[in-house]
Structures are given as structure tokens and as C-alpha cells.
């Protein structure tokens, strides 16, 4: 009799526990359907240069079922502004951030602090000493891209660029991205005897424009980022460069347009779609799985020339840029 009662209580308890488990599973499924939110902070985010990147982010967000939000930003940003922006995004419910850091150690330290709270993914290095940075980065091989550009240049001159004068344009001088590209380019170009007459950093478009045409005349102008490349392309279109040929690294439809119209000879295009896609994928996966850390990813780059601009593969690159 006592055993019967014990058995009865045991069975009822087991059934009740099972029912509770099932009910909590149902609730858990409902709660889980609340999507993770990832905020993206990049400079001048409304610019067309981010089209492919944002498209990549959007696709990855759909693939992983997360909510993605690109913060609207201006062309220039300080580390403090960036910090405030990340802070306000976290306050708004962001579970992770993807950041294009302001170059400098200060921002690196700031991001390291945030990393303790939420996953932080970079789409560019903050400092050149990447090995000391614990923050994961998804970016193209900048050094290799600079080198590829130099090789393309050599190819156009059949390997002989000795005595050619070069001008190098870039948006900033402190960005490790640009520094690496320049290093990669200079290593080959200077080895082959080309002479870098000037290397100028600045804003070449907009109201505070630095006129490229005012710079000393050179044979070749090398633009190391998208903004510089479109500025150089625009200068060529306006015949400001006095016959200098433009080579550069870019990823906007404008840059491609200048290549298409002959204002630029050759451009190296980083796979911005994949920077967006992979950075968001890494972040979303680390949110899904608490124990999974984020890893560095290197994306590819493509050489575009006017003749091959409309091949099937290159059309797809243009497709991502046009989104």
C-alpha cells in the first residue's frame, strides 16, 4: 500500500517534470525566435562604396536569421565619437557590433574594452601591429593588393617602369590598411626603378577638396583607396592630371565607371560583398554558439580591366556594387 502510494507520487512527479520540460521548451522556442541584433558602424556609411559590403551584410543576416542595422555616419569620425556610437547601439539592444575602427591605438583599446561586453568584429585593422590585437578582423590582404597593383602596372609597361614618376593618393596616412597597400606597392614598384615623387593623403572630393591637379606632374597616379580612386578618376575626366595614367584600388561603381570610360587603367577590387558576408556570419555564429570564438578571415580581390569588365564573373562583382 505504501509502495503503491510512493509509486503513484513518483509517476506523477516524473510526468509533471516532463510536462514542465516540454512547456519550457515551447517557451524557449518562442524566446529564441527573438532575433539577435547586430549593428554595423562604418565611416560614411551611406556612400556607394559600401553597397557591396552592405549587400553582403544583408544576405548574411537573412541566411543566419539575425537583425542587422547599419548606423548612419559621416565621412570623418573620432575614436570618442565611435565609442559613443557603439555605446548607444548597445543601449538600443545590439548584441554585437561590426566596426570599421578609427585608426590608432586609442580606438583599439576602446574596442578591446567593448569586447568584454559584446562580440566586436572589425572590417579593418585599427593599428598596423595586428598580431598584438586580439580583435577579429575580416579584410582583404592589403599588402598583396598593393603588390598586385604594382604587378599589373609592370605588365602594362612590359616590366619596365624604370624612371617612371609616381604619385600616390590615399584618404589617410595613419590607416594601417593604406599603409600596407602602399608598402606592398612600393616594394615592387621601387624595386623596379620607379620613382615615387609624392604621396599625398587627404580628402580629394567634397567641399574641403584638395585639388589633385595642383600636385607636381607625374607619369602615373596610384590611388590606394576607393575615395582617392574616384577623385583621381574624376580629375582624369576633367583632364586635370595632365596625361597621368591612373591605377588604383576601389570598390564602388564610380571607380568601375572610370575604368569603363578609360579614366583609370586598371583597378584592384577587394571582395567587399564577402567582407560584409563573412564578418556578419562570424559574428552571428559566435552569438549562436557561446563557446565559438570569432576568427580572422581574409577575403579575395579581383583585378578589373576595361576589356574584361563585362565578363560573367565581373558582372557579378558589379551586381553586388549596384545593390
Amino acid at each position, binding site marked *: 500500500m505504501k509502495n503503491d502510494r510512493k509509486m503513484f507520487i513518483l509517476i506523477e512527479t516524473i510526468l509533471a517534470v516532463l510536462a514542465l520540460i516540454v512547456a519550457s521548451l515551447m517557451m524557449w522556442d518562442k524566446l529564441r525566435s527573438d532575433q539577435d541584433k547586430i549593428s554595423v558602424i562604418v565611416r560614411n556609411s551611406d556612400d556607394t562604396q559600401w553597397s557591396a559590403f552592405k549587400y553582403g551584410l544583408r544576405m548574411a543576416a537573412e541566411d543566419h536569421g539575425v537583425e542587422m542595422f547599419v548606423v548612419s555616419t559621416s565621412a570623418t569620425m573620432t575614436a570618442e565619437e565611435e565609442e559613443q556610437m557603439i555605446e548607444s547601439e548597445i543601449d538600443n539592444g545590439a548584441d554585437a557590433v561590426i566596426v570599421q575602427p578609427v585608426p590608432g591605438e586609442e580606438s583599439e583599446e576602446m574596442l578591446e574594452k567593448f569586447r568584454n561586453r559584446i562580440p566586436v568584429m572589425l572590417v579593418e585593422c585599427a593599428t598596423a601591429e595586428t598580431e598584438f590585437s586580439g580583435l577579429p578582423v575580416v579584410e582583404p590582404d592589403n599588402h598583396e593588393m598593393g603588390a598586385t597593383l604594382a604587378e599589373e602596372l609592370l605588365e602594362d609597361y612590359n616590366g619596365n617602369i624604370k624612371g617612371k614618376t609616381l604619385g600616390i593618393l590615399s584618404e589617410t596616412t595613419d590607416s594601417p590598411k593604406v599603409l600596407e597597400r602602399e608598402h606592398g606597392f612600393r616594394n615592387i614598384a621601387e624595386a623596379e626603378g620607379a620613382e615615387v615623387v609624392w604621396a599625398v593623403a587627404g580628402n580629394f572630393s567634397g567641399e574641403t577638396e584638395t585639388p589633385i591637379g595642383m600636385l607636381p606632374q607625374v607619369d602615373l597616379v596610384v590611388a590606394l583607396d576607393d575615395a582617392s580612386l574616384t577623385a583621381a578618376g574624376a580629375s582624369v575626366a576633367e583632364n586635370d592630371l595632365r596625361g597621368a595614367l591612373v591605377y588604383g584600388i576601389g570598390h564602388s*561603381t564610380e571607380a568601375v565607371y572610370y575604368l569603363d570610360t578609360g579614366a583609370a587603367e586598371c583597378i584592384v577590387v577587394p571582395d567587399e560583398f564577402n567582407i560584409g558576408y563573412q564578418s556578419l556570419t562570424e559574428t552571428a555564429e559566435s552569438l549562436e554558439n557561446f563557446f565559438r570564438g570569432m576568427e580572422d578571415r581574409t577575403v579575395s580581390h579581383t583585378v578589373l580591366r576595361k576589356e574584361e569588365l563585362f565578363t560573367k564573373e565581373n558582372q557579378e562583382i558589379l551586381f553586388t556594387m549596384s545593390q
Partner: protein
Amino acid sequence: MWRVKSKYFFVNLKGLQPKSIQSTIMKAFSVISISIMLVLGIVLYMRFSTMSREETVQSTRKLMEQTGENLEDYLVSMRQISDAAYYNVIKENDLSARDQDIQARMNLLYEANRDNLQSIAIYDSRGSLMAAEPVAAQKEDPDVTEQDWYKQAMEEMENMHFSTPHIQNLFDDGTLRYYWVISLSRVVELTDDGVSQLGVLLVDMDYSAISRMMNQINTANNGQHYYLCDSNGEIIYHPRQVQISDGIGGENSKTAAKYKDGVYDETFEGEQRKVIVNTISYTGWKLVGVIPYDTLAAGTIDIRYFSILIILLMAMMLVVINRVISLRISSPILKLNASVKEYEAGKKPEIYIGGSSEIRHLGHSIQKSYEQIDTLMKKIVLEQNERRKSEFEALQSQINPHFLYNALESIVWMVEGERNDEAAFMITQLAKLFRISLSKGRTVISIKDELQHAQSYMNIQKIRYKNTFSIVFDVDPNLYSYCTVKLILQPLLENAINYGVEGMDGSGEIRVTGREEGGSVILAVSDNGIGMSEEEVSLVLTDSNRIHKRGSGVGLVNVNNRIRILFGKEYGLKVESEPDEGTTVSIHMPAVPYTEENRKRLEEGTAFYRDEMPGREMREKQR
């Protein structure tokens, strides 16, 4: 042997104690009800999930048909634009002569459809631009003859051709942008400066119109998706287009392009899925809907959880109900069992009577039988006591000191009177008397021995009473070999002497007769003494407390009891007496042949409690 072993084994398996009736009922109820519920739940769930899958597939088909129709409408409108441009503009006009008119008409067409249209352009057979709308600067060297849409139109002149999506590489509108278009191209006959020649009419449809339509249905974020491919499996629209071209994802479009309209099951990259194909007329494009099985299952996962929850709650309820029912059924049995157990433990509880009629009946029966057992037990104890008492008294009579003293005094008296022969006879009789009295401690002896004992006793008494009475033994010799209780005649003879013939001065006569009658042995002791009144006769066998005035003290009650204890209640003594006439005391016993076996049975009293006498059966057996 094996059976015994296996039985023992099963008992071991089930545990040494059998399960209680309540747990058995409850287990049986629970197993049956939960099994039924499980089967019902699973069947319902399967039915429901199948229905839900079918519904998903059906709704997907409907959605696809709708989208297919929208796409067809869109493509038909594009064809209509192409037709209008051809038949209303190109055929009717000379391109060189009435340039403005052509431009105006084309502008009209373009403006009417500008939401879905990128441009309309006419090229001649060398690939030169003849007219275009909207008007824009042509690129430096687009070389349209090398572009796919131009080549396709020229290859099959009679048809209209829809290209796959591509970047329009014709105009430079100064926006620094590139447009993603689907080209509808056809060969047209155009008149330029009065000369008729072939040309190509190009209608570039805005790809975003198609992608918008497809985006509208590609809202689910659960793996279910729709895509569009041409008849070769080249993807026109796919929600994961770039991932597929980058190799991050894949699509089975080459296979899907070969399917006819319908629903197909396929496995692609290890994923089982349902594929619904809908062909867009004229273009041969396929609108494909993909529903992974995981998605179908995900739709029913809530229902699955819900069903499990319901089943669990039902099981909880059923267990409670089963317990209540089993308690109700088993409770009277358990109470009955408990009261029986208490009884067995030595207490004297009321046997529980309650519950259903069967259990009530059982309770009544048990109670009754316990009462009977109780009565019987009391009776047994009583009778055993009486038996012991009687035997003790009988034993006492064997060594009655008064009798022995009298006998020995007679012997002394004879020896002194030198009546040696008489003394020797007396001693011999006394010896016989004691030998039979002892009889090796037996209680049952043969009638012959009993008669011998009676004779010895009477011989001694006769000498003592100086032959003041006579004794006659008239017993049928056939009776000698029957059983009798030891020492039953002596008390009767003693009574006959003491109360019957003593003092009759030689006229007293005692007769010991024996005969068999209807299976019974009747031994009778009669005297012709003073006799008794009826009242006295009735007290002789009932009043055990009567004080014996004389004699051994072993009364008729004792003799009567011993016979009845040994042979049964229907046997015993019968007293007949008439005052001044005499008294006859008859012993009624069954005719049980004197054998060792019968003697033992009678002495052990195995047939003692039965109403019927063992003697009767035995005798019948003997016969």
C-alpha cells in the same frame, strides 16, 4: 521437475511477494489507457502533420501560380511594347526621314512603361544605334554585335529572345551607375533612307521589376525560397544569387530546369526537400519553389510540443483517475483482507462486510466460517478435557484402594481359615483383573478381555459378598472379537452390586448379556434389585456431580462419556429401571472388529469429530 523449477524461477522473478490487487488494477488500467492515448495521439499528430504539409505545398503552389501569372503578365507587356515599337513605330516610318516622329512615339511607349523599362533601342545590322529612348549618350565602343542579346536575335530571327540578367553596356547617362537588365531582343525590318534592312529591336527590362516580384514572395526566413531560372538552368533570380556564384551556397537549378510542372521530392547537398516547378509560358523560364523538409517539420514542431504536453497532462490525469478507480474497487477487498490478517494475527476483529455484493458475500462467508471454527475449537478443547478427566478417573478406579483392601482382606481371611484353594483362586482372579486393567496402557481392548475382567471382578466380589447374589454371563461369543472401551463393565457391575442386589440375601441376580443388533454391540448389565424411579433414572447419566455413596467413584456418567468420546454421540449408556423390579444398564457401541489398526484409530480419535462412526465404515470394509 522442470516445471517445479521454472515455477520457482518465475516466483523469484516477480519478487517473492505477489503484487497487491490495487497496484495490479492500476497498472493494467494505466497501461491500457496510456497506450490508447499514445496511439491516438500519434495517429492524430501524423494525420495533422500530413495535412499541414499538404496545405503548405498547396499554398506554395497557389502563391507560385499567382506569381507566375504576374511574371507572365509582365513579360507579355514587355512583348507588347516590343510589338508596338516594331509595328507602330519601326515598320511605319523611315528612320532617317522622320526621326523626330519616331523619337516621339518611342518616348510615348517608354513613358507609359518607365517603371518596368530601362530602355528601348534600335540597332541596324552593323550594330549602329538607330534610335533609343530615353535619349542618352552611347558609350564609345559598346560593340553590340558581340553582346549576347544581339547574337541571339540574329541567330533565330523569327523569335523574340529573353536574355538572362546582365549589365546594360550601351549608354552613359552620366550617373556613374550600371543597370541590371533583362533584354528582349528581336530582328526587325527597318527602313533607313528608303532602304529596307534588318536591324535588332532591343527592349531592356528593368531587372528590379522582376526581383521585386520575387522578393515579395521570398519573405520566409526558414529555408523556404523561390527562384527563377531559364530553360538551361541559368539563374535569373535567386534570393541567394551572389552566395551561389561565390560558391557559399548552391542550387539545383540545372535539374529543376528539366522538370515539368509539378511537385517533386529531391535531395540536394544532403538536404531533403520538396520542389514545386511552374513554367512561365513563352520564355521557358521556370519558377521554382523549394520547401526543405526541415521547414515542413518546423511548421509542425509547435504542434508536436503541444501534443506531447497534452499527452503528458492527460497521462497525469489518467493516473489519478486510475488510482481513484482502483482504490474504489480494491478498497473493500483490502479492508476484508486486513480484517482477515488481523484475525490471523490472533486478534478478534469484526470481519469487514462492505463493497459490492460479491465481496459482501465473501465477508459473510468468512465471518460465518470463523464463527464455526471458533465453536468447534471450543468444543474440541472441552471434549479433550473431558476425555482426559474420564481416563484419569478410570485409571484411578483401577487401583481403587478400598477395593484392593477388601480383596486382600478376603485373601488374608481365607489363608487364615486355611482355605488355600480359595485364596489361590482369589489371587489368580485379582491378578487377571489387574492384567486387563493395565492392558499395556491401552484404552481400547477386545470385548473378550473386557468380559474376562468383569468375570474376575465378579469372582472377587462374590467371594467378598459371600455369594449373596448370583452372576450370569450370557454373551454371544461372536461379540468377543469386537472393540470396546476398557473397564466399562466394572462400574456397571459395581453399581448393580451396590445399588441393586446388595442385601438381597441370595436372591439377587446380576445378568451380563451381549448381542449384536443392527451393526451395534449391546452389552447389558441387569439386576433384579430395588430399581429406581424415572426421576432418578433421568439423573443417572446427566448429573456428574452426584456423590457416590459407595464404590470406586467412577459413575455411569464417566462410562457414558468415554463411550461417546470414543465412538460418537449416538452411542453410550441406556438405563432402564422399574422400582422394585430391577435395573438394566445397556452399553451401545458400534461393532468394530478388534484389530491393531482399528484400535489405534480409535485411541488416536481420528474419527472422533465426525458424526458418522469409523466403525461402521470399517465393518463394511471388512465385510
